[in-house]
């Protein structure tokens, strides 16, 4: 009798899956509709902007037409400078992101696991957190010059805090009941960390990574504005000094594109790692 009823449960599961397959088409058209609706306003705005710039309502030395900006990007792509600027900026963010994340994982885990460590480290880290991170810039430049080290350090500082906070709160938020299950099976502390605490704190950690990456992109702008001879931030300064708004806007657009692209990569990693979560289906 028990097996029969279990079979029915399983049967329902399968039925659910096949019905979602049938609804896929309907869902796709709905998604397409949403994309069309969402892009309506931006397309309209760009069109109006193009017209107004061409007719001279917006002076070209302040707001050039979208087509001019596009051709600026195309020129930079043709002479290859686009790739070196994008490349160096991405490299700085990447290096800072890795360093900041690694430090955050190490310190966050220690503070998360040991109460004593929390009492020692956490107040100081919280105090440092309340310093607006950009205030470090002059000091870093003084210490490390205007080369790569000061920029990467700057970005690492920005990435560190959100990742650290999420690692600590992720570990603190692990369900005691699941830890008890682990203890019931005789797991030692190391096994508990690896098999229960790490996977359970993964959602919080990944959230931290994504907001850390966002801050990394913000800080690379600040770092490159301070003094750089390459990079997208340098293009911003260059555009300002040569009175060419098209370079500034092109740089802003490139920032938006690669920022979004890297976030999208992390989002895919997140979905892969957290496919077991209830809410992941919709996001």
């Amino acid at each position, binding site marked *: *009798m*028990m*097996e029969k*009823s*279990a*079979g029915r*449960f*399983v049967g329902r*599961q399968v039925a659910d899956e096949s019905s979602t397959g049938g609804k896929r088409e309907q869902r796709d058209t709905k998604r397409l509709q949403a994309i069309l609706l969402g892009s309506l306003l931006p397309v309209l705005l760009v069109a109006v902007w193009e017209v107004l710039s061409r007719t001279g309502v917006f002076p070209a030395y302040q707001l050039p037409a979208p087509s001019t900006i596009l051709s600026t990007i195309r020129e930079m792509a043709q002479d290859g400078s686009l790739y070196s600027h994008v490349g160096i900026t991405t490299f700085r963010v990447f290096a800072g992101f890795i360093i900041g994340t690694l430090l955050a994982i190490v310190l966050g885990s220690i503070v998360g696991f040991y109460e004593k460590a929390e009492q020692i480290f956490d107040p100081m880290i919280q105090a440092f957190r309340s310093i607006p991170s950009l205030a470090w810039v002059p000091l870093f430049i003084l210490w490390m010059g205007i080369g790569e080290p000061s920029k990467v350090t700057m970005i690492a500082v920005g990435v560190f805090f959100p990742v650290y906070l999420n690692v600590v709160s992720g570990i603190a938020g692990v369900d005691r*009941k*699941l830890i*008890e*299950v682990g*203890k*019931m*099976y*005789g797991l030692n502390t190391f096994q508990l960390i690896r*098999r*229960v605490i790490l*996977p*359970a704190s*993964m959602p919080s950690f990944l959230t931290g990574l994504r907001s850390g990456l966002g801050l990394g992109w913000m800080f690379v702008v600040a770092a490159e504005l301070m003094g750089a001879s390459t990079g997208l931030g340098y293009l911003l300064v260059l555009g300002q000094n040569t009175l060419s708004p098209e370079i500034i806007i092109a740089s802003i657009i490139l920032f938006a594109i690669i920022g979004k692209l890297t976030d999208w990569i992390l989002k895919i990693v997140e979905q892969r790692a957290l*496919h*077991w*979560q*209830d809410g992941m289906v919709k996001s």
Partner: protein
Amino acid sequence: MNLNLQDVGRTFDGREVVRNVSFTAESGEIIGLLGTSGCGKSTILRAISGLDDAYDGRIEINGNVSRKVEDTTGFIFQEPRLMPWLTVLENVTFGLKGSRDQKEAAGKRYLESVGLGGSEALYPRALSGGMAQRVAIARALVTSPEILLLDEPFSALDAFTKMQLQDLLMEIWREYRTTIILVTHDIDEATYLCDRIITLRGQPGEMDRVIPIEQERPRERGSRQLAEYKKEILGSLDLNQSTQYEQRINS
């Protein structure tokens, strides 16, 4: 495998929750700990499991005193407590040691025996409450425990699922003859499943009565004999003065 408790008690922050609990469970016996909430029945179970080691008194498993979690005991909690990041099969084999193939074979066998063959690859989010608790039962059984501790294992389930799982527990018991300590506040459940029922009452909780249920299995739910036992248990848990007086005379 027998289990012996002598004067077990527990004090939390100076407040005595339960005291002087003594009983012996013979191998293959099903003992029910019954009582209103707050009388310390779950506390006793956690002491037996080794999850709590700060109790007073002695707990012997096969004559050995150990205040640690032992491989020979399995625990089924009130909630399924499945790891949401593991599949059903991985959850079942969570506590197993050995090669992957061995673990998976054992896990599949026990999933089959709780009626969930074919659900190995599902994640806990896709399970109903009853299915999740079946997985938890399979997880507790897969290590072949000699003593199975159950802490209100069916109390969060609807009435029908509850009955199904009680029958499942009886099937398992018939097959493995595990010693079972069942904590419950459901009198019908206790009379249906147990060989002996120990009632706990008071603050701090103390043993009130030990009621042997001398009924052949399989038992019939709602039978007159079980109803008689239920009456006796209700009498034991009643706060009525006259019953208390009567009890004192009896003991």
